[in-house]
């Protein structure tokens, strides 16, 4: 049974729930080495998405991603706003005309993550959300190539995301606000990596139950 944007309202609810539940912890991270607004930025974006959720549920994936991306772009602001907008608008572009099975989606995602790298002039190892997004996209591609079952794939993505977020702890930030602190940025998980991980896990949970 293919997953369509009909699932979007449920996804947004799950994302809102996971960000709200972890708000204080994430804010503490962004305050320690950033400016403390990351959670509010995401919450603003997710609220905006919730307002458009039904409308989005009626679209096909490329159209849905475009609409999600534009909504995020206009609601979030900050570094994470432009990066997630780039990711989602990138997905709209790269999924155009592709058959959206796991294989097709994983290719589209890799391209979209590539767009994020370019927008942020960043790559893995710089203590950003890319330390989660890049390994997750790569793992998805590997699992798709291996034709793994959905639950296996999702379990793997959860794990890779968690490892990616945790790996940022000992990194010295070279991108984003935390880079201003140089060596002082060490010892804290990156807020954007953490929320990327939380959202990926939440999405995986929704897809798990949808498939079950």
């Amino acid at each position, binding site marked *: 049974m293919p997953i369509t944007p009909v699932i979007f309202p449920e996804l947004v609810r799950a994302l809102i729930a996971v960000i709200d539940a972890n708000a204080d912890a994430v804010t503490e991270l962004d305050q320690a080495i950033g400016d403390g607004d990351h959670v509010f930025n995401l919450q603003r974006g997710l609220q905006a998405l919730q307002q458009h959720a039904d409308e989005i549920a009626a679209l096909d994936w490329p159209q849905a991603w475009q609409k999600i991306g534009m909504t995020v772009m206009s609601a979030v602001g900050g570094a994470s706003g432009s990066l997630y*907008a780039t990711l989602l608008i990138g997905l709209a572009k790269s999924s155009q005309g592709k058959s959206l099975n796991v294989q097709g989606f994983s290719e589209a995602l890799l391209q979209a993550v590539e767009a994020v790298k370019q927008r942020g002039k960043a790559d893995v190892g710089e203590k950003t959300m890319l330390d989660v997004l890049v390994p997750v996209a790569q793992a998805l591609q590997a699992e798709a190539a291996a034709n793994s079952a959905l639950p296996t794939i999702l379990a793997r993505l959860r794990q890779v995301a968690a490892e990616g977020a945790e790996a940022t702890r000992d990194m010295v930030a070279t991108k984003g606000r935390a880079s201003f602190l140089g060596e002082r940025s060490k010892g804290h998980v990156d807020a954007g990596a953490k929320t990327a991980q939380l959202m990926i896990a939440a999405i995986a949970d929704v897809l798990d139950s949808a498939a079950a």
Partner: protein
Amino acid sequence: MKKFIDDPNSLLDTSLQGFAKAHADILELNPEPRFVYRKQRKSGKVALISGGGSGHEPLHSGFVGFGMLDAACPGQVFTSPTPDQMMAAAEAVDGGAGILFIVKNYAGDVMNFEMAGEMLALPNASVLVNDDISLPKSHSIGRRGVAGTTIVEKIVGAAAEAGADLASCKALGERVNQATASLGVALTSCTVPALGHPTFALNADEMEYGVGIHGERGRETVKLAGASEIVAQLTDHIAEELPIAPGSKALLHVNGFGGTPLIELHLVYELAWQQLTRRGLSIQRSLVGNFTTSLDMAGCSLTLTLLDDEMVAYWDAPVNTAALRWGC
């Protein structure tokens, strides 16, 4: 949290409404998407647009008006605005001669302005301000834009008003930015309304040396010192950055971060003036006050711009904004 506020979510919009009412003679507010723009526009003029997170007032909305910005796009507190704000502002103030975005060098600002520039159907360019010398020039994402932004916006604003084209405005902005160096110290952090408590704590005998404008920690935490010692350090570091020759003309800007009284800012100005004059610099213009703030943060920065005659003329040119006004 000791603030005049009902709800952090409505603070920005209500405040902007008040700001627009208080300055209805020079500007208007577009509520959705949010931008503030000049009432009297001029066709054939390059339109100057800036923006950034809120909490730095009067920057940038206080600089909208004759001789300076055509529009400002305020983001949420300390959060860059979004591309739709910039695009809508550009369309509103376009005078047919192109749009110049003046952007402080922060990842969020840079990327959001970049997206706007890519999507905008009007000719546009941007000037990146990165005057904060607390980070090395080689820093991975470059230096931050801080209080020097005011100087860039004033001088380029006057040039645009005088009819300079897009390329000249951009080149001038980059020249002013090159000639400008800033460095600041924070005595306290600040309290972001949505958070309700200070971003970081400092002991009574400590200060942050080399800070940005978001209430975050600076280059290093050092012992609080007397004003003369602080100013001597700041001016030493600034003098290392700029090619100061005996007789060089300069503008000296002492910028308060919001929580430091004017009596102290003028003290700092006097001490900096003495330090810099001793180095053979001729301080020709000055600006002392709270212009690029960090909410209620106590502290200040020094900004020095080496002036050429064109810059002096543009600095002196009439300006009529909420926060800077002279000559008209």
